[in-house]
């Protein structure tokens, strides 16, 4: 049973996408084509999962300009969030190492996610068209030697707090942001806690009790893979 229509125009759009098979996603396909046309050179890479979402990556120096274009030309008028991903695998794993043993070898290769990337840090933002409800995940590389990118505050006023949060948690500078004060942490806090090489101190000073929990209980005959997941 379909929903009772409230405003016909909007509803028919959304119910079409629900009945369509997930492989064909004409709505998002058209949006991606329009985005490609609009951004041209500034678009580095894109990733499209039909029925799910679109990811694009733009050049660092075209970050603000291309998002402004997307807002004006394709009416991505709703600002959802802005954040940063640190693609370096954590040298501490999940903090479950036994402190009496030497630390295990860990994968340190930086691998980026959808729409690729060449740097450790990536800024990403999600914007949505409030009429068609198609969202767009936009990423941009930030090189380690100059952790700076243009602020989106002139494009979406709501980016203000998100950029402040990203600045204190990852140490990314947003050029043009008027007020990059700390939001959560004490003023004299040093370091950037959300970076992967910032250790979670609670897991460092005391071994994770989950390590002990994997031992089978007395009378527990069944020693199988499930006991390893017992910490969950």
């Amino acid at each position, binding site marked *: *049973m*379909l*929903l*009772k229509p*409230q*405003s016909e125009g*909007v*509803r028919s759009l*959304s119910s079409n*996408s*629900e009945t369509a098979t997930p492989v064909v996603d004409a709505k998002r396909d058209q949006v991606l084509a329009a985005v490609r046309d609009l951004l041209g050179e500034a678009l580095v890479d894109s990733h499209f999962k039909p*029925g*799910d*979402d679109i*990811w694009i990556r733009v050049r660092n120096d075209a970050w603000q300009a291309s998002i402004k274009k997307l807002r004006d030309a394709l009416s991505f*008028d*709703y*600002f*959802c*969030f802005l*954040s940063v*991903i*640190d693609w370096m*695998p*954590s040298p501490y794993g*999940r*903090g*479950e190492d036994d402190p009496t043993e030497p630390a295990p070898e860990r994968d340190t290769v930086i*691998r980026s*996610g*959808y729409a690729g990337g060449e740097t450790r840090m990536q800024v*990403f933002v*999600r914007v949505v068209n*409030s009429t068609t*409800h198609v*969202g767009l*995940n936009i990423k941009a590389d930030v090189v380690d030697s100059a952790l700076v990118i243009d602020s989106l505050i002139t494009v*979406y*006023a*709501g980016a*203000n*707090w*998100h950029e402040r949060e990203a600045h204190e*948690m990852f140490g990314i500078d947003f050029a043009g942001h008027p007020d990059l004060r*700390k*939001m*959560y*942490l004490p003023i004299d806090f040093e370091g950037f*806690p*959300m970076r992967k090489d910032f250790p*979670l101190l609670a*897991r460092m000073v005391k071994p994770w009790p989950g390590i002990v929990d994997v031992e089978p209980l007395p009378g527990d005959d069944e020693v*199988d*893979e*499930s006991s*390893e*997941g017992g*910490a*969950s």
Partner: protein
Amino acid sequence: MLGDRQQLSYIAAQAADARLNLELETEGMTLNIGPQHPATHGTLRIIARLDGEQVVWAEPACGYMHRGYEKLAEVRTFPQVTSLINRIDWLGSFANEVPFILAAEKLMGVEAPTRAQYIRTILFELSRIANVSLFLGDLGVQLGAITPVFIAFRDREYVLNLIESATGGRFHPNFDRIGGLKDDLPAGWIDETRAVMKKLRGFCDQIEDLLFGNEIFQARTRGIGVIPRDVALQYGLSGANLRASGVDWDLRRDQSLPMMWDKADWKVWTHPDGDSFARCWIRLQETRESTKIVDQLLGSIPAGPVMAKVPKIIKVPEGEAWVSTENPLGEMGYYVVSRGDLGPFRVKIRSASFNNISITPWLLRGVYVPDIVTILASLYFILGDIDR
């Protein structure tokens, strides 16, 4: 019409007072509200610079409840994360779990059985009712009316009892699992829920009579704290705050998720005014609609298992997923990045209140001191949802 007239007189009064302040060369004053203040639902601190009775500049100071869930999620396995995210919006906990679980399921390519999807949707709406009914009661307290909050606490208890009897937890159910639910519903639960939904519709009528028709309530909320449509969008406001500004957008209706909202007949309410009254009114209507959704879904829950076949040790394949749902406070979403490991590589938690409250420096400029309280109450935030 009443809203328009009141808004115009409010703006005229603001302008006249500002001119008077200039003529009198009044000295500015900094007013600190909070961190412990009844109007802030927790520990939000607001620093307001006043000129006479008007706010020149106001800024909320967050961080009194920052718990670093994004970092903590990185050292946990996927099933462990739900116990953390329960505590983001603590009044509607079950609703917090759903988008994260859906994101993990999307990456794994698992879908919960139909029965589990029905129960999920029902529990989701029950947590909305529990959450918003407290808001409706609390609204009166902000304006000096004590009675509604007692009614709200009394009637919310019925919903919490239902959630407790089904999940075992009043506030933190931790009931949603990747691939389904922890348990089936207890015997007799469906009949009891029907009776409670009837009571809750009575509660909505009572609140509407007591509060929304009240002249003082209308005078304090109509035409005050007006957010235009385009401002609401660029600040990323969501939920009732966005619909009160005339944007017809509800994530329950406008995206396809493996949930059962489309099986019920209900309405998305919008309001053209964008003022404090509109935001409160939308929430009242939404509570009514939620009881309708629950009532309809209760009758059509199919038989079957509540858990799909998932491995005992859950490894989520490599990929990125974004899932957001229409939570009691607004759009709550998780951007989950997995590297094929036991735990997530990165979880970005997009909580509704963070965006909803980030508009306050813009919104509070020029308002009078007593209106700070009503505007904040009508924006409706939960501290854990701002700071995460």
